[in-house]
């Protein structure tokens, strides 16, 4: 039978074994915790980007040009990742937000004008988000005079109550609605090989004889340039850079946690683009092939979801749009107020009382309610609002990227974490490409505005 000694020896062995397992798990457990703690900013920042303006632009480009715009997704993913990665790196290694760095290195006046531009551009973005709410509610048969004020008050209260973080997670969860496009795209049975083929630039691929017959080669005219710039403009927005860097600082990401954050930014950039890919393929297979080349209202955009939802397509589209809009509307005004107040030295933070941080609260409230009011007052011109908010983003983006590039290459700030030469090449090329596209869009939209003043 069991002797007392052998039992004790067995107990001893067990204790040792448990200890070994514990020791082995220790680094692993820490890593999980670390990943969960750091995951988020990159994913959020890229997903908020698929907002009302985004969905509109993707649907429009898919309908108008079908597969012929898909090639732009890979360079755009690279540009998005490169520009966001620089900000997250600056946040992790300097521990300062982008607007703080601009203030410290470029002085008050430069910062003031940059911040003024950020406020104007983001007001445009907030208006675009409420336009999304407006469309979604029209699609569900609710008047915008009911839905938009409710949405504005809801967003304001949620954030001031401090429940914003929880709500953020809920919105992020509802982003699963985007998968409706993925499923819809599969049900629409497009020719996947041809779509994937278009991820490579058709302008170059047409010289490969075997694939030439399958290609849709776009004509590079003004309309096409506008669509491309729109895609870039909605995908890579100036506010993302400020938001991401501030979030990295707030999450206390340091050099040791930085690799996890970089992965988060990478996953965020790619997942954002995968969604865009499916939305475009889906609209191309449902609208473009049927000859519907212009998405002029929510009803047309919803057709893309018919393969999945049938007669509920409009409802599904409305829910997706509403979620995307509210998600962005709850993040944009708050992050804008933070960035502006921090840079200019005003008290900020929702943990402060109203009297302590007047300018912060005033700015935050004004952004929401002015944005909502403009949408109510000028609802007829919703398309114009949306377009102009993208154009304004496009104007500000190169400026922000130039600041980022100058700062990230400063040895005294970043030490050995400055950009490598190859990285700088990619970053500067994408910045210059965006400036060129922006100029094209500015030219055409101003031209259009004067040609058809009613919008």
């Amino acid at each position, binding site marked *: 039978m069991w002797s007392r000694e052998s039992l004790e020896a067995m107990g001893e062995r067990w204790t040792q074994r448990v200890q070994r397992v514990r*020791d082995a798990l*220790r*680094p692993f457990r820490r890593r999980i915790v670390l990943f969960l*703690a750091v995951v988020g900013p990159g994913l959020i920042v890229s997903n908020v980007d698929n907002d009302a303006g985004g969905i509109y632009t993707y649907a429009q480009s898919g309908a108008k040009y079908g597969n012929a715009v898909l090639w732009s997704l890979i360079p755009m993913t690279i540009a998005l990742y490169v520009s966001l990665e620089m900000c997250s790196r600056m946040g992790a290694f*300097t*521990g*300062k937000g982008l607007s703080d760095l601009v*203030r*410290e290195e470029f*002085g*008050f*006046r430069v*910062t*003031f004008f940059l911040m003024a531009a950020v406020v104007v551009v983001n007001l445009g973005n907030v208006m675009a988000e409420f336009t999304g709410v407006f469309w979604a509610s029209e699609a569900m048969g609710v008047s915008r005079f009911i839905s938009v004020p409710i949405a504005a008050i809801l967003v304001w209260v949620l954030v001031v109550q401090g429940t914003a973080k929880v709500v953020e997670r809920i919105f992020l969860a509802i982003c699963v609605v985007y998968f409706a496009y993925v499923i819809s795209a599969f049900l629409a049975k497009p020719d996947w090989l041809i779509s994937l083929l278009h991820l490579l630039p058709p302008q170059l691929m047409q010289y490969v004889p075997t694939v030439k017959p399958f290609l849709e080669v776009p004509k590079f005219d003004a309309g096409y340039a506008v669509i491309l710039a729109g895609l870039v403009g909605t995908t890579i927005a100036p506010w993302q850079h400020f938001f991401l860097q501030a979030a990295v600082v707030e999450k*206390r990401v*340091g050099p*040791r946690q930085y690799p996890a954050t970089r992965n988060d930014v990478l996953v965020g950039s790619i997942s954002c683009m995968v969604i865009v890919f499916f939305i475009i393929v889906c609209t191309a297979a449902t609208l473009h092939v049927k000859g519907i080349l212009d998405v002029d209202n929510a009803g047309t955009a919803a057709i893309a979801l018919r393969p999945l939802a049938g007669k509920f397509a409009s409802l599904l589209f409305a829910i997706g749009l509403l979620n995307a809009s509210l998600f962005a509307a709850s993040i944009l005004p708050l992050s804008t107020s933070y960035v502006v107040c921090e840079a*200019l*030295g005003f008290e900020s933070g929702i943990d402060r009382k109203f009297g302590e941080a007047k300018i912060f609260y005033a700015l935050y409230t004004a952004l929401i309610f002015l944005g909502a009011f403009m949408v109510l007052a000028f609802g007829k011109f919703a398309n114009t609002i949306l377009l102009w908010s993208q154009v304004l983003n496009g104007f500000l983006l190169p400026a922000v990227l130039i600041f980022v590039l100058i700062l990230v290459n400063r040895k005294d700030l970043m030490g050995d974490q400055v950009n490598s030469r190859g990285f700088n090449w990619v970053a500067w090329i994408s910045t210059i490409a965006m400036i060129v596209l922006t100029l094209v869009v500015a030219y055409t939209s101003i031209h259009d505005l004067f040609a058809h003043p009613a919008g």
Partner: protein
Amino acid sequence: MLTATELMGAKTYDAQGNYVGKVREFFVEPAEQPNRVAHFLLSRGSFQPLVARHDQVASIEAGKLELSVPERALEAYLPNEGWLAVTKDLLDQQIIDTAGRKVVRVNDLDLTEQRTNGNVELRITQVDVGLPGAVRRLLQGIAPQRMIRSLQNRLPARTIRWEFVNLVEPDPLRRLKLRITHEKLEDLHPADLADIMEDLSPAERQGIISSLDEETAAAVLAELDARLTTQIVEKLDPEKAADILEEMAPDAAADVLGGLPKETSDELLDEMPGQEANEVRELLEFDPATAGGMMNTDFVFVGDKSTRDEVLEWMKEQDLNLDQLDTIVLLDGGAQFSGSVPVARLLLAGSNQVLNELKMEPLLSIQPNADEKDVFELFDKYNLRMLTVVDEDGRPLGVITVDDVVSKLLK
């Protein structure tokens, strides 16, 4: 009164009235005078920049500076680490307002003129962190001087007196040259200092912690966000880190070490004196989400047969940690836990009363592997301020105090 912004770009003339250049920067030399503007950097086109000393200045007004010496008496500018450059090191940078206990950004500096044997000296009186400074920075040189002045007078001022300003300089050598000490910070409550640190960048935090004395540093680290504490300790010189950890309560030290990679925490434990290190090692064995992970091994225990006066006498002789003196743990003859007595009861008891008669009912204790939720429930149900953790044989291992519970609950 003048401001730094108004002085910047001022045209400078020498004793003969010849134009010398514009003021591009001015410096304070803290080693000599903490608030005097000691040097003016003058530049004119592509000429070599010159420096005017404070005793070479005859008069100062907004936009204009007159020297009391000819141009050839001025020296050429050489960068000096011991000079505090107002534009580069102060304007737009963050400083610590030790009176208001927070981190603020400098918009402008207020200066006053002071006449000393025929010269005019400028002294920094306060830093402007409010709207008037912001407006001046924005409009200086664009709008007329009078308009700016009248506009800023209508705005609410927010200023900090120069003596309450604590500069933040991450580089230790530069800090030494600029005579930046953190004595004023050591007078703040550790919790306030921890809040201030959270608003700074990692390099600045590191600079502050490494210049504080070990006791203050330990108190601040215990108040900081766990992740920040880990980052700071990791970057400290191991010897200094071990000294700080030694000053911390063993449970707080264990929390810090638990967040570090195994090699680093082992290295730091080796640096610490044997007994402290052993206490912390034992605590590290426990899962942070259990009673053992929350407890502190630093507690006061006496035999349960002792009388009130004996205990009070004994306590006076010991060098006891007052934070732990809220409740006394009683041991019976077999060194097993027999109860606990709040010090308040001790005060009101008769002088010969035996402690055993004073102990709290019901007799409560918890095992180290009990889940933290059980701890919370006990504290809530019996309104405890302290709970004793005992091993399987009933020997006390440590105590959990109510502040441990509160900080756990807030996480």
